């Protein structure tokens, strides 16, 4: 079997005296689409930040394409952050944000070649018409598509997304997942997505990692998700009626 895209081995992350992640093990194969799901505070974002090299493990190892996250060339990873944390008052046009994905710098000037690459990435996600639009004038769905274009403009082998559906409507969400899937197939890329939305995880991912209480409590193909898994993972799912009916309809 080939080297996995991501290998997480005995990972512990502690902030001060508090463990955020404990003894996480997982392997994510290339070209797979994995959703990391869990309730708020479960440690999903910390796991993603560890994969990005922004958090140093307290114990254990994380490798991406066989290297420590901080040693992986930046152009091999595309990152789509949560749009709700972005400063949309920043004076910028969409294409400038896409160009940061290409050059890892804020652009002072745009070369014709870079401009065309950025425009092509926007075209790929159906957002070429937004190229000159100010970030402050974009809707949530439009900004999410621009962020996706930013992440794929460098043709990464791994795309990581943090709650990509937050703050966008159903149509925008469907468009975004269609474009993401298209890129994954074209570039044979691996996708890792953080979400608290089970519907999204089950519909789009091949595999689901459920994080609860700092640990992975479920790791299997999304079609294997059952009511019992959810009960075991969350302890209860009494308030998750929609989720329960989804699981029932799934199985």
């Amino acid at each position: 079997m080939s080297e996995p895209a991501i290998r997480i081995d005995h990972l512990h992350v502690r902030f001060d005296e508090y463990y955020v992640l404990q003894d996480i093990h997982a392997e994510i194969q290339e070209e797979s689409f994995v959703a990391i799901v869990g309730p708020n505070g479960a440690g999903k974002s910390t796991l993603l930040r560890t994969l990005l090299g922004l958090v140093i493990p307290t114990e254990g190892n994380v490798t991406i394409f066989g290297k420590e996250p901080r040693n992986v060339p930046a152009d091999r990873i595309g990152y789509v952050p949560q749009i709700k944390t972005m400063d949309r008052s920043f004076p910028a046009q969409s294409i400038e944000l896409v160009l940061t994905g290409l050059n890892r710098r804020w652009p002072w000037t745009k070369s014709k070649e870079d401009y065309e690459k950025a425009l092509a990435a926007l075209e790929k996600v159906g957002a070429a018409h937004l190229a000159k639009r100010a970030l402050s004038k974009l809707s949530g769905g439009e900004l999410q598509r621009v962020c996706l274009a930013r992440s794929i403009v460098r043709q990464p082998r791994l795309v990581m997304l943090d709650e990509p559906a937050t703050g966008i409507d159903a149509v925008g969400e469907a468009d975004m997942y269609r474009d993401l899937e298209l890129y994954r197939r074209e570039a044979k890329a691996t996708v890792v997505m953080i979400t608290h939305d089970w519907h999204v995880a089950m519909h789009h991912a091949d595999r689901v990692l459920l994080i609860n209480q700092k640990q992975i409590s479920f790791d299997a193909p999304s079609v294997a998700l059952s009511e019992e898994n959810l009960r075991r993972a969350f302890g209860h799912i009494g308030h998750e009626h929609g989720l329960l009916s989804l699981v029932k309809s799934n199985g």
Partner: protein
Amino acid sequence: MPFMQRALLGGILVGILASYYGVFIVQRGLSFLGSGLAHAAFGGVALGLLLGAEPLWVAAIFTIVVALGIAWVRLRTNLGGDTTIGIFFAVSMALGIVFLFMRKEYTNDAFAYLFGSILSVTERDLWMTAIVCVLSLFSWPLWKRWSYATFDRELAQSDRLPVVRDDYYLSILIAITVVAAIKVVGIVLIAAFLVIPAATARLMSPTFRLMTILSVLTGVVSAVCGLFLSYYLDVPSGATIILLQAALFVSAMILKTLFRHKA
């Protein structure tokens, strides 16, 4: 060099520097930093006067230490920027008062630093400003990294940029700029020199690049015109420059409002 030429050169250079670094201060929501560092500079000036050393050079070291301290505390705690700056602001001011008290001499010269006196800019002061200009010129490629981190710090970090190191360097350059601006506008008004041109440019700019250019233009035009106005009207130069900047800000607001209504 005649005093008016020194004043003009000092005004132009400080106008460029303060309005250039101002765009990062304004866009990062750190407008209070200008006030904090200006009051740190007061502590440094007072220490220089107490020691009998060149006040601005002592102030430069003192202000750099405070700027790095503010950046360090902000990185290592979850205190808000304003709280951290507020603490350093008050401590520096308190130290400045104690230093002046310990000097036990007439402190009229300290007031010149408080309110600025562009016409008393010496060649040595110009040297300090020139050093910051040269450092800033060499640091020009950092505009792209500082801007990226200003937009989204975590995104820049995920792209492997040395954001923390860049922040410390930016803090040092802002600290020296504040000290270089003391003679031109005075400690009391430095914060405005850092904030108003950038805020004016922000109103008119769809991109961060244009914001930077317009901010520097606003800083230079207001410094030159303010200097001549103050000379002919015989009023304090620092205050005149700031009032001119405020007039430009109000004009930009009016233009923006009119433009929006027409659009």
